[in-house]
């Protein structure tokens, strides 16, 4: 079981909480909650072989919310006094237009999440700065040793230790401790005036020892260096429609952009998603089954509970090509009359809860990855990507390859750079003809942005073949 969080970590009493909930839960308010958060984040970074930056930030505050029908009233404060709670409560309930007539709320009963997906103590995260400095210095040496053409190495190590507590008008009082860390390495290679970049990294809700297991941190350094060197000899991508093979792991960003966002309940309740009204319909080929799963131990996108205190779960989004379900928070699930999936997330106490993804991936299929590549006469093999973006309403998504190769005659031949893939969400997965048996989750570096809020997420994918997709590039095919 996860830890039981004492309320006095936030300097408030159960009476304060009960008082504020009672104040906000006026007659027309359907539901109210308080979200307390305290977060310490730290970062050390290196460039030019010097670990010269260190930062630490401490934040603490409370978000108070009331919902009435489709309306949400929200206020937050970085002061946690009784008076600040009351002021926030008065603002939040404003939307219900019933100034008086509060209703009694049940006395909150303290509980804790029933599982602990990330049993990391603060001490496992809070290693001496000197150890972090040593780690970054070794990364610099390793990357430079990989190839003398590596001219600069930048690396940063970030940790976050967040304690949250949710108190609801339904009598729940539940907290969680959410550690998170990430190690990122970027290399710049240079040869005859040609400069190229390569990045690699990983992380999760894990302790510092994770990075030292089997010298993982040195692998990050070598990978970043390898990609930068590879790009020195890459050709510009050819533009046009072609078959594309996506490698396992991070290319699962395809699912996140093309499918995931379009299945978030808020857009579907408002019927502004390209996936609105497609439940039960075919949106992918038979070989595609896609889930969102917040319950994987230690993963960057995992949570014991979401930011409304609901346990996270595994939600089947697409089953053998048929659209099965949406990703929900409380408000949207309630308004739509569908299950709460534990996907109500927020960046911090300063932001409102939205339905968000956790770890989104496609289940393994039957095909041999080598056979998938052999099946392509002329196309693209993309193994790593930068960011992606989607227009929820028309379904068009884009994502850009950071490591890709040409496939010619069933064989991987030359590396190419600058390939951007663009397609349409409800359509693209119908063109997936082969799914590998090699499901891989990403290394733990993903951050998803929505309405200005960033939350950590994971993605995963086996090797897949997309029969045709538009590839952007500078060269004529």
């Amino acid at each position, binding site marked *: 079981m996860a830890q039981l969080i004492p309320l006095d970590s936030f300097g408030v009493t159960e009476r304060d909480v009960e008082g504020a909930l009672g104040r906000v839960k006026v007659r027309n308010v359907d539901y109210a909650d308080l979200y307390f958060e305290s977060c310490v984040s730290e970062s050390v970074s290196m460039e030019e072989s010097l670990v010269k930056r260190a930062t630490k930030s401490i*934040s603490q505050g409370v978000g108070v919310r009331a919902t009435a029908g489709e309306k949400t009233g929200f206020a937050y404060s970085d002061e946690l006094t009784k008076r600040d709670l009351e002021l926030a409560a008065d603002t939040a309930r404003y939307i219900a237009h019933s100034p008086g007539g509060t209703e009694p709320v049940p006395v909150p009963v303290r509980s804790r999440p029933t599982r602990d997906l990330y049993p990391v103590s603060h001490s496992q995260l809070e290693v001496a700065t000197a150890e972090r400095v040593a780690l970054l210095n070794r990364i610099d040496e390793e990357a430079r040793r990989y190839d003398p053409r590596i001219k600069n190495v930048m690396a940063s190590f970030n940790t976050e230790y967040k304690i949250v507590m949710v108190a609801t008008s339904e009598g729940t009082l539940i907290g969680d401790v959410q550690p998170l860390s990430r190690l990122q390495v970027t290399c710049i290679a240079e040869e005859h005036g040609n400069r190229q970049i390569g990045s690699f990294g990983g992380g999760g809700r894990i302790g510092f020892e994770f990075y030292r297991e089997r010298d993982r941190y040195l692998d990050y350094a070598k990978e970043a260096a390898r990609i930068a060197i590879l790009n020195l000899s890459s050709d510009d*991508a050819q533009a046009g429609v072609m078959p594309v093979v996506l490698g396992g792991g991070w290319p699962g960003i395809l699912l996140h952009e093309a499918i995931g966002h379009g299945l978030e309940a808020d857009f579907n309740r408002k019927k502004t998603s390209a996936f609105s009204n497609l439940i039960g319909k075919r949106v992918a080929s038979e070989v595609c089954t896609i889930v969102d799963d917040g319950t994987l131990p230690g993963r960057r996108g995992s949570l014991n509970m979401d930011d409304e205190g609901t346990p996270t779960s595994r939600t089947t989004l697409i089953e053998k090509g048929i659209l099965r379900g949406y990703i929900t928070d409380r408000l949207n699930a309630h308004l739509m009359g569908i299950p709460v999936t534990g996907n109500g997330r927020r960046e911090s106490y300063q932001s409102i809860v939205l339905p968000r993804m956790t770890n989104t991936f496609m289940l393994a299929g039957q095909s041999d990855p080598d056979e998938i590549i052999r099946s392509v006469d002329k196309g693209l093999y993309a193994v790593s990507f930068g960011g992606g973006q989607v*227009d929820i309403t028309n379904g*068009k998504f884009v994502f850009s390859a950071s490591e890709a190769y040409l496939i010619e005659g069933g064989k991987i031949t030359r590396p190419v750079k600058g390939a951007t893939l663009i397609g349409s969400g409800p359509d693209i997965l119908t063109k997936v003809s082969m799914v590998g048996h090699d499901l891989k989750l990403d290394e733990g570096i993903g951050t998803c942005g929505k309405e200005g809020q960033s939350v950590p997420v994971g993605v995963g994918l086996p090797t897949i073949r997309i029969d045709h997709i*538009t590839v952007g590039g*500078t060269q004529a095919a």
Partner: protein
Amino acid sequence: MHQQNPDRAIQPANGHLAQLAADVLAMAKKDGATEADVVVADGENLSVQVRLGAVDRLTKAREKRLGLRVFVGKRSATTSTSDFSSESLRRLVSETCTLARAVVEDSMSGLPEPEQLAQEQPDLDIYDDTKVDAERQIELAKRAESAAMATDERIANSEGADFDSSWGRVVLGNSHGFVGEYRSSSYSLAVSPVAVDPASGAMQRDAWYDVQRKFIKLETPEAIGIEAAKRTVRRLGARKIATKRVPVIFDRETAGSLLGNLCSAASGYGLYKGASYLAGQLGQQVAPDWITVVDDGRMIGGLGSRPFDGEGLPTRRNTIVDKGMLASYLLDTYSGKKLGLPSTGNASRSVGESPSVGPTNFYLVPGTTPAEDIIRSVKDGLYVTELIGFGINMVTGDYSRGAGGFWIENGQLAYPVEEITIAGNLKRMFMDIESVGSDLVFRGRIASPTLKIAEMMVAGS
């Protein structure tokens, strides 16, 4: 247009930020810091979202934050907190000094020289104390959304309309004795309608907005709503086009995004790391000789204006591209030292971070050609109104992004296009600018008139 209520000025959450900064600096000195600076920011925000005529969301907030940077000799660390209790601040100061001792010496680190710091702090007219209460914000948002819905019957749905007002105050103090303070405000109204194609049922969404330092300068809700509806409806029936190399016109919104790319490339931190395609290009031709790009921190009422930068240096007007030549980078003290150049007054400071570099009001000086004439000059080409994705490699300038817009046939916008990509290289694209529109409007810190690029690769079907 709107009424003002000057007697209902917002009272900042805390009174004596400058004193707080001075106290923290004194504590830092006691703990062994040889130099330090402190940023304190506080603010208030009220925002509403209405959707389909009803209130969807109301958010109100007050926040404050203090950031501290200390130097112990040539070692430095930066911290921040939202807890202003003296016990917590004392602990923060001590931790910051300890953290600084744990990193290595950096010979280039340090505060700017005392004589560089801003001597006077002009009023740039960036603050408005007009309080727009929730009812009024809701009313304005509703008017904007209903104007959009009424414009065209194909506007069948909406992502809503948002009104947001924010007031903030920033105090910066350092161990050289500098203390600066300014207030700023912003008011914005945005509408995001959804149009449905009656034939196919396909949906398109677009948006329009205005943002101003002064409430009274904000566009009318009706004008914003109507523009949002027009932009949305015109996307209906979009198709893909065949892959080909053609002239590409960026409307002023997407041209602004290109200017943003140029701004990043000209910013000090990427340059000294060798992570920008403009590294080593100072004094070189980067655009045709009739192109000028300016960053002006003192523009009256500008969304990027401020009297001093994130290190206390006076902001100023810098010509970045002068008659096509890269005339200046954007620098703070540190990145300047790394490149052997003085700061350009472009230090930007988010409270918890050490300074970085950012634009103030960064724009391409407009020409005299109306945008319609630029479109008329193209026989077969693309007019870009939307860009998505992150396919930009700042190290090489390689550019490959998703796009939407209109196909131009014989000088006319013929039909909307989508699900296409455009690709080129930023270095080449700026050299290949063929025309600059007369239509510069600031709707953010970075702005551009319409731009025509001679040729880019467009990928479609």
